[in-house]
């Protein structure tokens, strides 16, 4: 097999080839290492060198298929900067639990991928290390915040990648890059070693070329971790999907997240409607459902997530690690270090969060947002009494041009309109490629109750087979 041929295999197929002895893991690693090193999209902030090719893991379930990892996962001795100037050059002394777990299962570290600073952003333009380019059109954004991971997988320089999703940071870039992105149920994957944005929402998940790869990677991510008190693991095992039917499946389509008046691009809505028809042809029933509080999700999210972030980011003070700007006294050092180290969007959210937690404002903002969050979880719970899944377009638009929304934070925030409600409810949600609109990928989002990952993957797999998405447009070699 030529190096290019090797990188054309899906991760699951490559793992199978290794297990059958048809492919050497070292060869696989070197092929991807070369592809990652040659990346022109600014998708990587660090790539393993040749000497770091791991020993072939005998019989490891992930077959030595290398893994691109979002920068914010701590990796011992390897730069882990969360896309921020304030952590420039920071090499942690320990490795995140999920990265260690995947390495032990046979997915060695290929590289660290670019991201919006501290996972705050929907376009990857908030990275301190420059934006990532969309492999479908290099004048456009890949989405964010896991933009580097999404672009690397779509372009074929990584077989699969790890991302994190706080309000859509896996699903939205997956949609904009034409790949699969899955946000698992909150608590199924350990957060230990994930540099935090918003602790009660952050969740690691796979970005992959297809649904089977997502299931395979996820199967080795889930599990309780004694280092993360909020981790609960997954009841049972994640199975590889094989269904080609949606017979008897009831899909609920929330008016609030897919109606005509909510600002979704016509091309995206058309693709979404076409897939609903396809679902019916596979045996599903499609009906309108209600998520009455979903329109308030974005407001609640932009209170809660910045509040937690304002506290989580307080540790970047120049005292122990990362950047430090001396300025005579203590307050001066704090101020100068944080002024120089954080980018404008991070500063904006720290200010928002600090304000909403302030004495006298707490109940009006944080307290009320928590109540909205509860209502949204209740909305989903009652929807799941009637429906197996709730489905929406993943992102209201296709990939937009670099710079198009940087001057308008609110329009940037609207990218998360369809993904934030599931984050607030803590439920699993997957985005799968859903055809093109004007030559650019759109995403189809499907979510289910907590711990329904296996059913979500089965349904997504059936739809994926029927949609038959052609990802070749993202590969520079043209496939």
């Amino acid at each position, binding site marked *: 097999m030529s190096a290019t041929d090797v990188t054309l295999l899906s991760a699951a197929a490559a793992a199978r080839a290794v297990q059958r002895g048809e492919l050497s893991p070292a060869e696989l690693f070197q092929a991807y290492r070369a592809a990652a090193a040659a990346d022109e999209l600014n998708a990587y902030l660090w790539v393993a060198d040749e000497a770091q090719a791991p020993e072939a893991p005998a019989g490891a379930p992930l077959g030595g298929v290398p893994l691109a990892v979002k920068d*914010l*996962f*701590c990796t011992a001795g390897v730069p*882990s900067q*969360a896309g921020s100037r304030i*952590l420039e050059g*920071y090499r*942690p*002394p*320990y490795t*995140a639990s999920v990265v260690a777990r995947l390495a032990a299962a046979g997915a060695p570290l290929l590289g660290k991928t670019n991201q919006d600073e501290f996972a705050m952003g929907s376009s990857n333009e908030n990275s301190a290390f420059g934006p990532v380019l969309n492999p479908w059109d290099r004048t456009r954004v890949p989405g964010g915040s896991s933009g580097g991971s999404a672009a690397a997988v779509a372009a074929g320089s990584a077989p699969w990648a790890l991302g994190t999703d706080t309000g859509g940071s896996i699903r939205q870039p997956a949609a904009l890059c034409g790949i699969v992105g899955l946000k698992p149920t909150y608590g199924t994957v350990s*957060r*230990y*070693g*994930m*540099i*935090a944005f*918003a*602790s*009660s929402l952050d969740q690691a998940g796979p970005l992959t070329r297809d649904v089977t790869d997502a299931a395979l990677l996820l199967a080795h991510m889930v599990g309780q971790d*004694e*280092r*993360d*008190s*909020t981790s609960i693991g997954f009841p049972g095992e994640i199975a590889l999907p094989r269904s080609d039917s949606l017979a008897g499946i009831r899909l609920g389509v929330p008016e609030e997240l897919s109606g005509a008046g909510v600002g979704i691009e016509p091309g995206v809505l058309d693709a979404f409607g076409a897939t609903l028809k396809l679902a019916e042809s596979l045996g599903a029933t499609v009906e309108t459902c209600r998520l009455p509080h979903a329109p308030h999700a974005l407001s609640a999210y932009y209170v809660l997530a910045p*509040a*937690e972030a*304002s*506290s989580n*980011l*307080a*540790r970047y*003070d120049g*005292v*122990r*690690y990362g950047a430090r700007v001396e300025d005579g*006294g*203590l307050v001066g050092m*704090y101020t100068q270090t944080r002024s120089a180290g954080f980018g404008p969007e991070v500063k904006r959210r720290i200010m928002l969060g*600090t304000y909403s*937690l*302030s*004495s006298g404002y*707490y109940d009006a903002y*944080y307290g009320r947002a928590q109540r909205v969050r509860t209502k949204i979880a209740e909305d989903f719970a009652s929807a799941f009494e009637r429906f197996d899944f709730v489905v929406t377009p993943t992102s209201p638009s296709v990939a937009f041009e670099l710079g198009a929304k940087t001057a308008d934070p609110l329009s940037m925030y609207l990218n998360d309109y369809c993904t934030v409600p599931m984050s607030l409810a803590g439920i699993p949600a997957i985005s799968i490629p859903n055809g093109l609109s004007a030559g650019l990928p759109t995403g189809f989002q499907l979510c289910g109750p907590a711990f329904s990952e296996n059913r979500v993957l089965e349904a997504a797999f059936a739809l994926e087979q029927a949609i038959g998405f052609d990802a070749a447009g993202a590969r520079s070699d043209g496939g």
Partner: protein
Amino acid sequence: MDYEPVIGLEVHAQLLTQAKIFCGCSAKFGGVPNHHTCPVCLGMPGVLPVLNKKVVEYAMKMALAANCRINGECSFARKNYFYPDLPKGYQISQYDEPLCRGGHLGDVRIHRVHLEEDAAKLVHAGASGRIHGSDASVVDFNRGGTPLAEIVTEPDVRSAAQAREWLTLLRTTLRRLGVSDVNMEEGSLRCDANISIRPVGSTELGTKTELKNMNSFRFIERGINAEVARQEALLRDGGQVVQETLHFDPRTEAITSLRSKEEAHDYRYFPEPDLVPVATSVEMLAAARDAMPELPAAREERLQALGISAADARQLAWRTELGDYFEAALASGNSRVGVQSLANWVCNELVARVGEDDPNASKVRPDALAGLVALVAAKAVTVGNAKLVLDRLVAEGGDPAQIVEAEDLGAIAGGDDALEPIVDAALAANADAAEKIRAGNMKAIGAIIGHVMRETKGRADGAEVTRLVRSKLGL
């Protein structure tokens, strides 16, 4: 107008667990700076806290000892502020759902008890000794993340002396529970006091000030007295107390303002999303209750019921090791020992000789002291000579009867013929005194007794000498 102080105390007690509250690092005091650390207690990016269950167990014991109502579920919150000794930029503490509320210890009501992590230790180089104006400051994270219980009282304390006395009871209780060694020098007990004054008879509370971080019982007493005096002088001059946080300098007795209400921190408390609420089960409570030793307040009551004076009972109950020594002596089986006289010997004579040291570590075995007290009770040795025997026991240990024998310190018994000629000689040598006694001045008998004691090296029984003198003078 007379004023009365109204004082509430906030005590931080370090819990004596092996590991820190949210990581596995040693919580031991001291050590090479920054050696008891890990990514968690250094606040590295990406780390998460995991609650040490032993901390909850210890705090539950403490809460039970203070008769608190333990909440079925408690949770942690973040207290946000920037300081170099606080690696995450927030302290994990408890806010609106503390471990317990209500209760009382002695005569002071408890408002709440909650758990939190300690900050690291800052060392400032340079003349000022404080962070502002220092040449450099370094941080030792060994202490960072050690578990603290904060005990907040109701404003029930009415004097500095009462504050000191209550803190002593608290210290004894915590030591008795084995949950804290309550060593103020090592910072394992720190105290803040909220102080206001009001006209005697008033039920309204005056404006309070907070006196921060006093680290010895003596300084607490002096600090409170100084602040009460400051507030009184202020009010008498027609001024007003301003709500502020104060620092007491024990060297100069000066009270300085750390910050006013306007400068007070907004800690932006919110629920700690990295931890799940702690459910305190019935089983956990029962286990803690079963593991409770007898506490000082209960011991004090029991000792009083044995017939021991209130003052001695308190001393024995509040100094656990002294009480243990006393009970060991009592249990050594000498039925002729009076409970109160044994208490006298322990609380007065023994304490005068061993001071603050643990008597159990001294050379005087409890059964030896009980034996000595029994010899006194049997009039086999006089009180004066028994004190000499105790000196010997403290210095060398040994058996009191043997010391009496070897040193010839045994009392000359009442019926002993040996005493009479000595009394006769004393009367003859002190004719003036004998005359005065005959005339009814019994004070003069001291000279006679003194003479006899010199002659007998203190072995004579004073009462027996008196009886002989009276009979010989025909009184």
